[in-house]
C-alpha cells in the first residue's frame, strides 16, 4: 500500500518559487484501481513523478508498505515494486522492443512471453519485436510499447500517466480492455491512472480530484463521478479521434 503524507512540491521559475503540490495526503489502497483526475496544471503528472521518484518533494513523506521511501532513488522504488508508464514515451536509438521488454521483466524473457505482452496492447508481435524504439515508430505505436513494458514489469503498483495521450481511437478502446483485465487480476496490487477521460474514470474503484495542487475530492467512483461529468475532469470522449482519423490523432 502506498501512502502520501503532507506532500509539498515547488518549482523554481526564474528565481520565483511556485507551489505545485500543497500539503497533500492520500492513501492508495491495495486491490484497487484509482484514477486521479482534475483540470490541466492541477499537479496530477507531478504527483505521479513524485511517487516514481523522478521528482523529490520539498516536504512530506511517501510510505510504501509502511516503509518511508521519500529519499529512495527511482531504481530502488522500481525494485520495490513500483512501475511507471510515461506520458511521453522515450525513444532509444539501437535498443529494440524486445530489449525493453526483457529489461522490464527483469529476467531472461522468452520470445513467446514478449510477444504476449505486445499482443495485449494490440501490436502484431512479429512486426515489432525486432524494431528499434526510435523515431521510425509513430507516437501511438510508442505509447502501446510503453504500456507493454509496464505490463512486463508485473509490479505491485503500476502508475499510468495519461495513458490515452497520443493514441488513436482503436488503441484507446484496446487500452480500456487492458485496464479492465488488469483490474480483474489486481488482487493485492494497485493501479494508479492519471487521466481525465470519462471512460477511464468509469472503470475506477476510486476517484481522486486534484485541483491547483490540492485534494478537491476523493472517494468511491459512484459518489464522485456524477459531480465530474461535463467538467474538464471528465472529458466524455476522444473528440479528435471520433472523427475517425485513426493513426496518431491525439486524445
Amino acid at each position, binding site marked *: 500500500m502506498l501512502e502520501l503524507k503532507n506532500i509539498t512540491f515547488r518549482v523554481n521559475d526564474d528565481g520565483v518559487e511556485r507551489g505545485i503540490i500543497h500539503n497533500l495526503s492520500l492513501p492508495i489502497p491495495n486491490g484497487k484501481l484509482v484514477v486521479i483526475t482534475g483540470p490541466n496544471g492541477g499537479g496530477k503528472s507531478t504527483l505521479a513523478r513524485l511517487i*516514481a521518484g*523522478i521528482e523529490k518533494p520539498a516536504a512530506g513523506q511517501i510510505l510504501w508498505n509502511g516503509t518511508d521511501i521519500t529519499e529512495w*532513488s*527511482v*531504481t530502488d522504488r*522500481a*525494485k520495490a515494486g513500483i*512501475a*511507471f508508464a*510515461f506520458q511521453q*514515451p*522515450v525513444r*532509444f*536509438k*539501437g*535498443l*529494440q522492443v524486445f*530489449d*525493453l521488454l526483457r*529489461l*522490464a521483466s*527483469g529476467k531472461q524473457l522468452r520470445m513467446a512471453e514478449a510477444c504476449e505482452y505486445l499482443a495485449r496492447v494490440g501490436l502484431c508481435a512479429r512486426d515489432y519485436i525486432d524494431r528499434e524504439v526510435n523515431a521510425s515508430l509513430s507516437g501511438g505505436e510508442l505509447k502501446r510499447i510503453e504500456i507493454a*513494458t509496464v505490463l512486463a*514489469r508485473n509490479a505491485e503498483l503500476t502508475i499510468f500517466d495519461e495513458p490515452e495521450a497520443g493514441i488513436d481511437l482503436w488503441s484507446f478502446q484496446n487500452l480500456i480492455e487492458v485496464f479492465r483485465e488488469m483490474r480483474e487480476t489486481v488482487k493485492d496490487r494497485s493501479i494508479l491512472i492519471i487521466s481525465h477521460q470519462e471512460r477511464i474514470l468509469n472503470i475506477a474503484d476510486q476517484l481522486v480530484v486534484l485541483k491547483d495542487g490540492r485534494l478537491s475530492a476523493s472517494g468511491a467512483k459512484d459518489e464522485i463521478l456524477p459531480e465530474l461529468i461535463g467538467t474538464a475532469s471528465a472529458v466524455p470522449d476522444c473528440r479528435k479521434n471520433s472523427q475517425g482519423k485513426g493513426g496518431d490523432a491525439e486524445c
Partner: protein
Amino acid sequence: MLKLDEVQMRLLREVADLHKVPEGAYNIRSNSQSAGRNSTANIEITSKQDVSGLEIRIKPGTKHESVHIPVVMTESGLKETVYNDFYIGEDADVVIVAGCGIDNCGNQDSQHDGIHRFFVGKNAHIRYVEKHYGSGDGKGKRILNPVTEVYQEENSSVEMEMVQIKGVDDTNRTTLAELAAGAKLVVRERLMTHGKQNAISTYSVKLNGEGASADVVSRSVARDDSYQKFDAKLLGNAPCSGHTECDSIIMDHGRILAVPGLEANDVDAALVHEAAIGKIAGDQIIKLMTLGLTEQEAEEQIINGFLK
C-alpha cells in the same frame, strides 16, 4: 597446423568470432608469422614476394564462400605494415572477415598497419567485416592504422562493417573508394573510445559512374578523456546518390569532431550529410531506472544498444 596459445585464441574470438579453424579459405597471422593457411578451389591465398602481405584471388562466379584473415599480436614492441590485396572476380558473392587483436602486456608500443586493397569485379558482391580489439595491462600502446582502398567495377556492391569497441589506444583509419556506374557501397562503422584513446576515421568516396551510390554511417561513443574525429567526404562526379552520417554519444570529458564533406561535380549528384553529437538524454536513463536498472546499468544498456 595451428599453434596458438590461450591469449591468441581469445583475440581470435574477439576479432573474428573464431572458436576453431574456420571453414573455407583462411590465413591466420600471429606475431608476424603465418600460423595457418588454407586455399580452396575458388579462393587462392598466396604470400606477396616484395612486401609483407597476401594476395587473395577469388574466381569469378564464386558464391557463398568465405575468407578469414585475422591478425593477432601478443609480443610487446612489434611493429608491422602488411599489404593485402583482394581480387574479387566478376559475379562472385563472398564474405571476407579480417580484424586485428593486440594484447600488449609490455612497455613497448605494438602496432599493426593493415593496407587492404579490394578490386571488385563487375556484378560482384562482398561483405567485409573488420573488428579491432586491444587488451593487456602494459604501458605500451596498442596502435592500429588501417588503410582500406576499394575499387568497384560496374554494378558491384560492397558492404563493410568496421567495429572497434575496446582497447585500441590509437587508430588512424583511412578508407578510400572509387565506384563505377551502378556500384553500391554501404559502410557501417561502430566505434567506442575510452581512457585517453585517439581515433581518427577518414573517408573519401568518389562516385564516378551513373547510378553509383554510397551510404557511410558511423555510430560512436567517446568516453573518459578520449578523442574522435570523423571526416567523411563524398565526391559526386556523375548522376549518383550519397549519404554520410555521424551519430555520436559523448560522455565524461570525451571530445568529438565531425567534419562533413560533400563535393558535387555533376548537376544530378544528390549528396546528403547528417551529424549529431550529444550526451545520453536524461529521460532515457530515467526510463530505464523505472525498470529497475541503476544509472550506470542504464547507461551501459543505452550504449550497447546504440553500438549494436
